[in-house]
């Protein structure tokens, strides 16, 4: 495996690829001990459902949030998941526009990551409400009370942003799936699968007019999705930048959050394709070149994020506001200092190892760095949300925050739900986008 591998190894050709990839979806066993792998995520998903039911039953008080720190795990997890989701869209939409060939094989898995990341993120804004059964009041529907939501609130922009983002990424994901579903429909061994994939393929027959419309639509959607994901994630950044809380109201947050999305997105994609490549024997199509490119992208976004941290510190000290500086010192040397330094270590220092090609190709080290980045991003959100809130402007309102058991259970639950979703995807639909691979693979020599 060398960084200069071709996008697909020599000798790979269309028919073999199509047989192999559609085989994964059509055969009953995805990989040898596939069923065992699904037990843990299913268990965690049921933990998630259980903790949500208890939350609705007992109220938000079961979490660790308290008086000065009124936001906790719910908002941290929300921002963390939406960053992972946005990372996936960058790969599938942004790099489609740049016509980079290496994107074709990992586009489908990135898009699925977006889908399930957004699903996990989407439940939190409703869970963290004090009266979740009234969440529909955020929607501007004509009601008997003659009241409209308050449009100056960043939370409301968030509501619209997430709604459009989820809908558009579902459409983009499903559209990218149509030709492959048609292929599966044609190769389905049993009548049941035939009808299933037939209905899902919406009658796609691969005629030239259909392809022309398809490419036009796919191009337009990709062109829409790229700026959309930047706007969605900057609105998530505005959740904090729009507030006057100590440490939040800096204009740098929207771009800073998009850097964060880059970083966590590439890290998660790496974490998904490396095991998938090995277990589903897709080394031919996800080659060293992919790992190398993603490694470099991870490195660049880590530098972006590093720049973000430096600017954060610079803004605080240059601004000279007493409360901001007190909070920042508390962030560096206070009760939660460990979490801040973990952020710096995982997000900025560790990825610097990726400068060396050898490291970029050593799958184990890259996996560790990716996991580190994911944890680092969570710690960064923890620092932003909790550390800023626990040192407000009036010292009489200082307070502390500890995540309660239900916070952790809900977090683990969503991780389980995410992995459960990915495994479902691997089981039901082709993991690699076959029709895009055909564009770059040579036809089979007779």
């Amino acid at each position: 495996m060398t960084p200069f591998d071709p996008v697909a190894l020599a000798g790979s050709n269309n028919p073999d690829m199509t047989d192999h990839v559609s085989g994964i979806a059509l055969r009953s066993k995805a990989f040898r001990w596939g069923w065992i792998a699904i037990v843990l995520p299913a268990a965690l998903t049921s933990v998630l459902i259980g903790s949500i039911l208890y939350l609705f039953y007992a109220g938000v008080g079961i979490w660790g949030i308290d008086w000065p720190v009124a936001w906790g795990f719910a908002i941290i997890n929300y921002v963390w998941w939406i960053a992972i989701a946005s990372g996936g869209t960058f790969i599938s939409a942004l790099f489609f526009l740049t016509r980079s060939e290496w994107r074709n094989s990992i586009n489908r898995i990135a898009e699925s990551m977006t889908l399930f990341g957004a699903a996990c993120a989407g439940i939190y804004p409703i869970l963290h409400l004090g009266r979740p059964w009234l969440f529909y009041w955020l929607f501007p529907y004509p009601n008997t009370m003659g009241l409209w939501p308050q449009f100056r609130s960043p939370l409301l922009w968030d509501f619209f942003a997430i709604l459009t983002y989820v809908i558009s990424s579902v459409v983009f994901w499903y559209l990218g799936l149509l030709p492959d579903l048609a292929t599966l429909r044609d190769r389905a061994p049993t009548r049941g699968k035939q009808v299933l994939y037939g209905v899902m393929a919406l009658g796609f027959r691969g005629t030239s007019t259909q392809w022309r419309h398809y490419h036009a639509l796919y191009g337009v959607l990709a062109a829409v999705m790229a700026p959309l994901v930047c706007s969605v994630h900057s609105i998530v950044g505005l959740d904090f930048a729009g507030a006057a809380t100590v440490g939040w109201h800096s204009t740098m947050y929207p771009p800073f959050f998009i850097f964060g999305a880059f970083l966590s997105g590439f890290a998660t994609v790496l974490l998904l394709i490396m095991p998938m490549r090995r277990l589903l024997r897709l080394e031919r199509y996800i080659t060293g070149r992919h790992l190398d490119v993603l490694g470099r992208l991870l490195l660049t976004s880590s530098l972006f994020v590093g720049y973000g941290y430096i600017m954060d510190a610079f803004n605080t000290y240059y601004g000279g506001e007493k409360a901001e500086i007190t909070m920042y010192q508390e962030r560096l040397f206070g009760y939660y200092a460990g979490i801040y330094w973990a952020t710096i270590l995982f997000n900025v220092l560790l990825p610097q190892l990726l400068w060396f090609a050898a490291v970029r190709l050593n799958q184990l080290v890259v996996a560790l760095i990716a996991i580190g980045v994911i944890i680092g991003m969570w710690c960064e959100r923890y620092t932003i949300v909790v550390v800023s809130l626990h040192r407000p402007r009036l010292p009489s309102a200082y307070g502390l925050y500890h995540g309660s058991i239900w916070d952790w259970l809900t977090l683990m639950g969503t991780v389980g739900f995410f992995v459960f979703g990915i495994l479902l995807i691997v089981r039901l639909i082709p993991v690699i986008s076959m029709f895009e691979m055909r564009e770059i693979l040579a036809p089979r020599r007779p």
Partner: protein
Amino acid sequence: MSRQWRGLDRLSRDPAFVARASAEFPQLAAALAAPRDRRGVLKLMAAGLALAGLGGCDDGAPGGVLIPPVLPPTDTVFSGNQMFATASVVGGYANGILVRHANGRPIKVEGNPLHPASLGGTSAIGQAEILGFYDPDRSRGLIRKGEPQAWSSLLTAVAAQREAIRQSHGQGFRVLTGSTTSPTLARQIAALKQVYPDMQWHRWEPVSRDAVRAGALLAYGQPVELVAKLGAVDLLLTIDSDLFDSAPGHLRFARDFAARRNPTRTDRMNRAYAIEPTPTLTGVAADHRFIAGPRDLARIVPALAAAVTGGEQPADMPAWFAPLVADLKATRGRSFIHAGPAQPAAVHALVHAMNEALGGRGQTYDLIASVEADPVDHAASLRGLIDDMNGGRVTTLLIIDSNPVFTAPGFGEALGRVAVSMTLTDGPTETGAKTTWNLPARHGFEDWSDARAYDGTVTLLQPQARPLYDGISPHYLLALFAGPEEVNSRDVVRQTHGLNEQQWHDALATGLVAGTRTAPSDVALKPVQPAVPMPAAGDVTLLIRPDPHLLDGRYANNAWLQELPRPLTKLTWDNPLLVSPAIAERLKLTNGDQVTVANGGVGVTLPAWIMPGQAPDCVVALLGFGRSDVGMVGQGVGFDVYPLTAGRGPVSLHKADGRAVLASTEHHDPLFEDAGDYVHHGTPPHSRQIRPSSANQRSNRRNTTASLAGRLPGA
């Protein structure tokens, strides 16, 4: 940059600080580990109901009912809130209050602007009376040795007692009450004394004012009481004083003092000095606050008295001593000195002498005949009762509105030897559990009574509502002991004051009987030089003080007072041992560490809390907590320190193992090099500008401070 002191533990900046910082705020980690307690169960049940009512908004279906009265209201057309005057009696002295009614039931306590002790203000305890009235834990029925009884059984029992006592001319009959100023109660007990000449009336207040009474006896030969007129005081010196938080008339004193504190509201701003071992409200309000433990006070007060009256300058005195004496002498006739009840009698006598010497009598304060009915030394009175009980000389004991089993060590055992004992309290008490009869008393809002304010004004207590649970009033019970016919407490009270219809109506409307202020007495000062006893030696001095909100434990079941953050420590639901920073440094204590404090043989283990501004050798234990028999709210809250009051030996303090978690509403380093950002403060306009809080760089605030300085009146 001067080292900014961010917190008591941060002073040393040692590497172990992070670990200990988490020790400084232990409560959250422990709170999460706390098991699902009673509260948890209630929460699940209630939350279920909340979930059931999922609507949250109006679904259009009319619900609820309208319940009109059967008979129309008699007075003018009912238009909402009405106010009725009554009084909140604390420690026997009355603060006039008005109770606001909504829909015919008492809802809110307000101050009574016409009452001399209130002038419209109330104390935290006065406000919380309303919750005591509605407390579901109030005793609801007559209990004899644990079993509920019918009311008739009480009548027969009291009749039997009456006969037994008449035979022995009241030999074994004893009545124990708290300190009371109620003319009706005093009259009823005097009437009882006629019927049973040998009966005795004992008084016991755990938060005792014995020292104040003894001091007055020493100085004037009779137990006179003090009526301060702080409006005329230019210089106030308070020695460990409770002038603003629990002295009789403290609301009025606070009002008069505060009226002359704001330089822009008064032409002559007064000045206050305070000398005290532990911070009090008067200490915080003072301009100069000096810290002196009981051992130093025993040396300083006689020297001060000698300097003020005699004029000679004693030698080894603290730096602030001479300027204080000079200032006192400079303001003859306009200065006033006040000592708190915790100071020994000799200090009070010396303070009386100083006040007389400074010519304050008549200008800044008056002395009036004792407002308390038949003042007697409470400690001696209770010791006599306990000895009689142990000697078997007490056959019938009637305890009214007092809880000696909890507040007086040794009373519980003695109670066993009394044939028939009755307790009359409005809630479950430790005494009620031990006496043969536990009678439910009516709350202050449910019956007629009277009391006197700090200046002697007679204040009437009129019922605000029909009794929630059938209880009896002390007047009814005492009348029952005197004669068989059941008497209405309204008539008893009315007979005491002999008011005609119009006077009675006016008294009820205003809440006080006009013109009953006690005239100032002109008793002369007896020239006496009492020696101030030096407290026991030992490296630690134990001060036992009432809790600012629960006083002696009477309000332990009042959830508002339990959860009210204490003025200085901001603690709720707990009474840790307040240790001075010096002791904390010596024993390496942080907030919440367990310590064991022993007074003579008796020891109590409780958490410690560091109290900045406390005398280096002092620790303060707060009474009122750790009650065992009180009701769901106060059950098992805090630590009972009453056993320490009995100890006489040397005080020892050492660190015990383990930590306790204290619920404080303040979770930060309380100490600042300069709190000017948040609380602007400075010196008077004379120096032409508010001293802008110095060192910190508030560049963006330069304009407001400058504008503040610029706009001062031509001082």
